[in-house]
């Protein structure tokens, strides 16, 4: 058994050494993929690289904070700044420079607001497809903002400490002044008390004298008024009595006349007999006293009593107030008031990121990976489909049989490539549909526009499959070579990570693979949300590379098909 195991062990190595495809997959393929991945991602892991990010900056502030920020950013390692006039130019700059993942706008009033204690915001406009690189720079920007804020705060604190010391001196002087004032106020209070007591005594004496004089004058005036009223009353009573006497005489004459008349009239009537009716009207009775006379009798007696001339108390106090002078404050209070130039603690310099493109800022990771891995698997499937299909047909003999059956070489190649082209396009459509349904990927403003780069890359993959079929020659060789080519093209072309991660030489090389242009088109349409027109050039480049592959493949296939 041990001998068997040993023989099998040795034989397996012998078989392996004879199998070029196995050796290719065993060593070369992983080395290539590892190299591509390693070169592409080494910046992420902090390995120093000669890459330089360029950040367009729009300075609308022109203040100290703007200058400090620009200076700080420009001193950052591996970062250069590019001053631009406005956001539109900044957007164009980011669009055309792979190394420009974001633009910074320092709004007007940032410095003033910061110095007055507000917390102004720097605006960071991020290209969504360079979100990861932008995040790295945003981390640095965050640190810079924090440092600028800290420096400003330290300066303000130092100024504040100086003002505090000066204020403390002033307060000490104020305390001394207060003591002096307290002493003088005590003296002043004593003087005031004395003056008040003296004044109170003087006022009381004068008021007493004035009241006594006033009482005397009032008494005399009252007595004079009463005497005058008595005289007037006696006169009026005499007049009343005279009027009453006249009325009494009248009443007596009237009663006598009434009795004489009654007798005369009775005699008359008796004498007249039947001529009593012809008796004339009796004589008129004496007039009674007039109404005025009677009214005068009943009217009340009015006395023209006039109020006495009351004495008026003198209003002036003939008091001499003692003079009490205010103590003199020998401290200039203005000196003790804090000056107006007291420093204000500055605010906090912050930043807010926004999307530089019409698309949203926060990129769904599937927006990168659905098209990225979609292209990878499209490449693998279409490459294998065309190349393995041709080689299988060659090996099975069906290719020769088709030729004998009247099929032309061009027709066979075109049919095979067309089939794989359609299959590849359908694969992309299905993957994008699932990505949209399951992962919510963005399909851009016009989802149908994605068909353009999709069709271009499917064509390029089919054409490259023809090249692989001619290079590899056998099925065993096609599988590893095709897989490695698909993976390498995907990795270099930015299907697995943003192409901006890659070093400059690799990005230059990536211009010669269709995946680069296709991913650019997909990113523009899906993540940046740009219109179809932006995808025309990348799609044309992809298609052009496909034509190059097709030319090479057709030239090589004539030999292969023999």
């Amino acid at each position, binding site marked *: 058994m041990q001998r068997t195991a040993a023989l099998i062990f040795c034989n397996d190595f012998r078989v392996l050494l004879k199998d070029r495809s196995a050796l290719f997959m065993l060593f070369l393929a992983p080395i290539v993929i590892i190299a591509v991945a390693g070169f592409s991602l080494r910046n992420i892991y902090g390995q120093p690289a000669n890459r330089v990010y360029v950040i367009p900056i729009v300075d609308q502030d022109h203040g100290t904070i703007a200058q400090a920020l620009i200076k700080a950013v420009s001193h950052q390692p591996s970062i250069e700044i590019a001053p631009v006039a406005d956001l539109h130019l900044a957007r164009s700059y980011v669009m055309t420079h792979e190394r420009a993942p974001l633009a910074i706008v320092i709004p007007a009033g940032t410095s003033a607001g910061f110095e007055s204690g507000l917390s102004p915001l720097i605006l960071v406009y991020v290209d969504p497809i360079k979100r990861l690189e932008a995040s790295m720079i945003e981390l640095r920007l965050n640190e810079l903002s924090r440092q600028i804020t800290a420096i400003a705060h330290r300066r303000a604190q130092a100024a504040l400490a100086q003002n505090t010391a000066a204020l403390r001196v002033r307060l000490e002087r104020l305390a001394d002044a207060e003591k002096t004032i307290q002493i003088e106020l005590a003296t002043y209070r004593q003087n005031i008390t004395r003056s008040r007591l003296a004044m109170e005594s003087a006022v009381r004496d004068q008021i007493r004298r004035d009241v006594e004089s006033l009482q005397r004058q009032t008494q005399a005036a009252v007595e004079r008024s009463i005497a005058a009223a008595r005289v007037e009353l006696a006169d009026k009573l005499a007049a009343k009595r005279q009027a009453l006497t006249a009325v009494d005489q009248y009443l007596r004459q009237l009663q006598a006349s009434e009795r004489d008349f009654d007798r005369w009239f009775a005699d008359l009537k008796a004498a007249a007999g039947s001529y009593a009716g012809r008796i004339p009207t009796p004589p008129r009775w004496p007039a009674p006293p007039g109404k005025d006379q009677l009214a005068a009798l009943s009217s009340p007696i009015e006395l023209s009593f006039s109020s006495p001339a009351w004495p008026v108390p003198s209003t002036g106090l003939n008091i001499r107030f003692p003079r009490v002078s205010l103590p003199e404050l020998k401290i200039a209070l203005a000196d003790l008031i804090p000056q107006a130039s007291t420093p204000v603690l500055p605010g906090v310099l912050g930043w807010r990121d926004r999307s530089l493109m019409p698309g949203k800022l926060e990129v769904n990771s599937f927006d990168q990976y659905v098209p990225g891995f979609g292209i990878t698997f499209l490449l693998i499937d279409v490459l294998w489909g065309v190349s393995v299909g041709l080689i299988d047909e060659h*090996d*099975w003999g069906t290719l*020769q*049989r088709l030729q*004998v*059956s*009247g*099929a032309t070489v061009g027709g066979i190649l075109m049919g095979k490539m067309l089939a794989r082209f359609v299959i590849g396009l359908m694969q992309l459509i299905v993957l994008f549909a699932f990505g949209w349904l399951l992962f919510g990927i963005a399909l851009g403003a016009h989802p149908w526009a994605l068909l353009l780069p999709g069709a271009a890359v499917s064509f390029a993959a089919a054409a490259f499959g023809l090249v692989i079929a001619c290079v590899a020659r056998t099925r065993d060789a096609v599988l590893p070579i095709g897989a490695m080519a698909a993976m390498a093209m995907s990795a270099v072309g930015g299907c697995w990570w943003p192409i901006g991660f890659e070093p400059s030489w690799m990005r230059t090389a990536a211009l010669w693979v269709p995946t680069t242009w296709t991913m650019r088109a997909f990113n523009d349409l899906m993540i940046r949300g740009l219109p179809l027109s932006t995808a025309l050039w990348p799609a044309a480049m992809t298609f052009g590379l496909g034509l190059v592959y097709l030319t090479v493949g057709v030239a090589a296939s004539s030999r292969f098909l023999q």
Partner: protein
Amino acid sequence: MDAALVEVSHLRKSYGPRMAVDDVSFSVNAGEIVGLLGPNGAGKTTTLSILATVLKPDGGKVRIAGCDAQQRAGALRRRLGFVPQSVALYPSLSALQNLELFARFHGLARAARGAAMAALEAVGLSERANDAVLTMSGGMKRRLNLACGIVHGPEVLLLDEPTVGVDPQSREKILRIVGNLSQTGAAIIYSTHYMEEVERICDRVLLIDRGQVIAGGTVREIIALAGGQPRLEISFHGEAPSGWYAGLAGVRELACEPGKAVLQFADLGQLSELLQRARACGAGVLEFSVHSPNLSDAFMSLTGHGLRDPVVESN
């Protein structure tokens, strides 16, 4: 039967320094089966590929039905049937789908289905019409392979070792089908290294070795050409000493393996002497057989090596 449907003259083809076909000339009449007999690597497949117009010769002419095969390849292909050595079929498609596909390529449009069914009937696979090729046995695949070559009713049928690796029953069917096709007037070129098949179905035989036609004619003519002497095949228990038959006139060794020898001798009268010598050599005779001369003997006689021996490159 006299009109030559296929005419090949001074055909040459080389792959680098190796001459695969060297000045080959022959003709095939309608209704005639011509066998190309030779060991592996003799140039049979290259010759057929040139006749099938999928390979350009370096020199010489091929005329099929009076037309230059190279200049009018497109037109001639529909009149040609080609059955390659490999099973040239789509494994995942059904038998019917394979046949229909090749029928359409040969210009049959609406008639493709009917022609496919007829071809399946001819090769005895009607019941397996809808089965995928990959589910079929080797013999069935070979018969279907043949059916794909005849589905369009070709005037010229090129068969490149159509019975390689098949069971005896399938071989029998294939040979019977080929015989039937010749009776319909097709000119058939049958390439093989099985002498028995040639002897059975071919009207004429071309012995090919190292790209050259070394003999041509009917089977009898070729055997006669090679001398027509019987041969003795004898097996020993042990290893016979070298030259144990020495001294007998007209006897020569055709092949020698450890414990076995093939000898050609002049006439049957020498047989008893040969057997006595074999018994006397001490190796112990295990068995022996005496054969009449055949194509294999003739080939060996003419080339010095057997039909089953692969061609050894001289350069």
